[in-house]
């Protein structure tokens, strides 16, 4: 019965979807491994839901192929769906039905379902088990939707923006549920526009923008790979002037940091003119420098301690008061903003 080949639960090859001639999913290649929690991250309108709905069999691709657990979701949906748990962004429920009744209904669709009452407790809905669906809050509906997606013990759960309408507390609880689900062996594909969610949960993250894959890797890999391409002009080795407008180029393959770049970064917030900036760029331990936004500079170094000493000395010498100096790893947010652009990926 299981026709899956290899270790991948989902395989997309050159997957394409167009609306009115515009590609919203553009030759996307992606593979989700069995047992992993995979996050599809992107700004609103990046093509996440279109991608997911082709995986679920709701939409017909205009090009490329989808295999889900070895099946074609449009032609072999009948055999695929018993293995699948779906949480749709737009999936509602009978307004007059109670959560416990909805879970009992969906439990009856699967051969070895979870206990509806226990599952309701697990997602924190025991208190409203006998309320009508129409009386639930947005967050409660979403938790019920999650419960409906996993009541059948699916091999693969596909969750579209699972925590969108939840408050912080509910979000944390949901993360716990998802981690447990993954521990139990379920493969999870989730979409999110929340960076902290992808960072906290995912084994691997794919960042998509305008229907294209722009980065793929573990959260740590993506963080290390931020800056992504090559050092800018102004490195000591080159000795040239730093271009104040020159943010770091992103031409090379994303997710692959040059070997000489280590993951320590230092953020300097200070009023610097072009000449002063060039001086910073020539400090011996600076490996790369870019202008994050006016007045905010990100330095990359192999040795943050040495750089701090050099930088402090230099600041004292030239008489500039820094507004802030921060040392640390980049967050996924930095990667994300770099790759999809600030202001929603334009």
């Amino acid at each position, binding site marked *: 019965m299981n026709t899956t080949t290899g270790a991948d639960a989902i395989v997309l090859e050159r997957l394409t979807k167009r609306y009115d001639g515009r590609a919203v999913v553009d030759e996307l290649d992606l593979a989700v491994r069995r047992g992993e929690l995979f996050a599809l991250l992107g700004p609103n309108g990046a093509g996440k839901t279109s991608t997911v709905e082709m995986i679920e069999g*709701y939409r017909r691709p205009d090009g490329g192929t989808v295999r889900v657990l070895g099946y074609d979701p449009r032609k072999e949906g009948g055999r695929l*769906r018993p293995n699948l748990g779906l949480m*749709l962004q*737009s999936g509602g429920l009978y307004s*007059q039905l109670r959560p416990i009744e909805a879970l009992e209904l969906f439990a*009856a*669709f699967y051969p070895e379902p979870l206990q509806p009452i226990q599952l309701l407790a697990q997602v924190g809905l025991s208190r409203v088990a006998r309320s009508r669906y129409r009386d639930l809050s947005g967050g409660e509906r979403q938790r019920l939707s999650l419960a409906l997606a996993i009541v059948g013990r699916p091999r693969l759960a596909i969750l579209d923006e699972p925590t969108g309408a939840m408050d912080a507390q509910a979000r944390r609880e949901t993360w716990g549920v998802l981690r447990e689900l993954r521990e139990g062996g379920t493969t999870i594909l989730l979409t999110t526009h929340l960076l902290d969610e992808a960072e906290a949960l995912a084994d691997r993250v794919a960042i998509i923008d305008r229907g294209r894959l722009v980065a793929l890797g573990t959260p740590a890999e993506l963080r290390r790979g931020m800056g992504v391409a090559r050092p800018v002009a102004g490195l000591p080795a080159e000795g040239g002037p730093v271009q104040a407008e020159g943010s770091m180029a992103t031409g090379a393959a994303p997710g692959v940091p040059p070997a000489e770049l280590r993951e320590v970064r230092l953020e300097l917030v200070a009023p610097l003119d072009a000449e002063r900036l060039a001086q910073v760029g020539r400090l011996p331990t600076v490996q790369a420098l870019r202008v994050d936004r006016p007045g905010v500079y990100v330095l990359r170094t192999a040795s943050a301690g040495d750089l701090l000493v050099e930088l402090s000395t230099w600041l004292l010498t030239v008489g500039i008061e820094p507004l802030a100096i921060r040392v640390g790893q980049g967050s996924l947010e930095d990667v994300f903003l770099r790759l999809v652009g600030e202001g929603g990926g334009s």
Partner: protein
Amino acid sequence: MSAVQAWRAFVAQARVELLLTTRRGENLLVTLAIPLLLLVFFSTVPLLPPPSWGGRQVDQVVPGILALAVVSTGLVSLGIATAFERAYGVLKRLGGSPLPRPALLAAKTLAVIVTEIVQVVLIAAVGAILGWAPPGGIVPGIIAALPWLLLGSIAFCALGLLLAGVLRAEAVLAVANGLYLVFLLLGGIIIPLDHLPQAIAVPASLLPPAQLAGLLRGTLEPGGVVDPIQAAALAAWAVALVAATLLTFRTE
């Protein structure tokens, strides 16, 4: 999905469909309260011309009310409920579950049949209290009328689903209720078509409610005759509406 699993899924879905039928108050109003109210009102208040065969008023009211019951269940109740299930994404969610589509259709069909059985029993019972006495008796009369009730159910359920599958839910709400009123007044349901002016009666006779009401009158009124042309016309409507629904229905 195994046959046993598909049966379990069907039973669970049918249970929910029936449960929801009882929970929708507006549903019970249109399927039960209004037909029974009209039955009692027009059987007891002498507004209609007396039956041509000189019997009781109730004898010419019950066949039309049975037609109205079928219209209310198929067009109004099923149509509006399905339209909102589509609008709220219930159909989409079910479509992504292992529930086989035939099991969903069977569950909805069962809910319609159960509703109609309750309607027919209540209408016959209230009719009997008011003195309804079809030729050959009530039970044989109902049995003789079953083919027309079934054919009418297919036509009006298809009409309800046709609207639900293409229009916005709010539009279905308006159109279904509007048609219900038009059919009630001009479909030969309360006022037999031959009491209406020719200019209305002739076009109205081409529509399925007049055909259903005509067939039920032909079966249940003293001296009534079933018109085979009406039966053929209603069957043609049923086929056309089912085909149109199958071609156009969208779950999203």
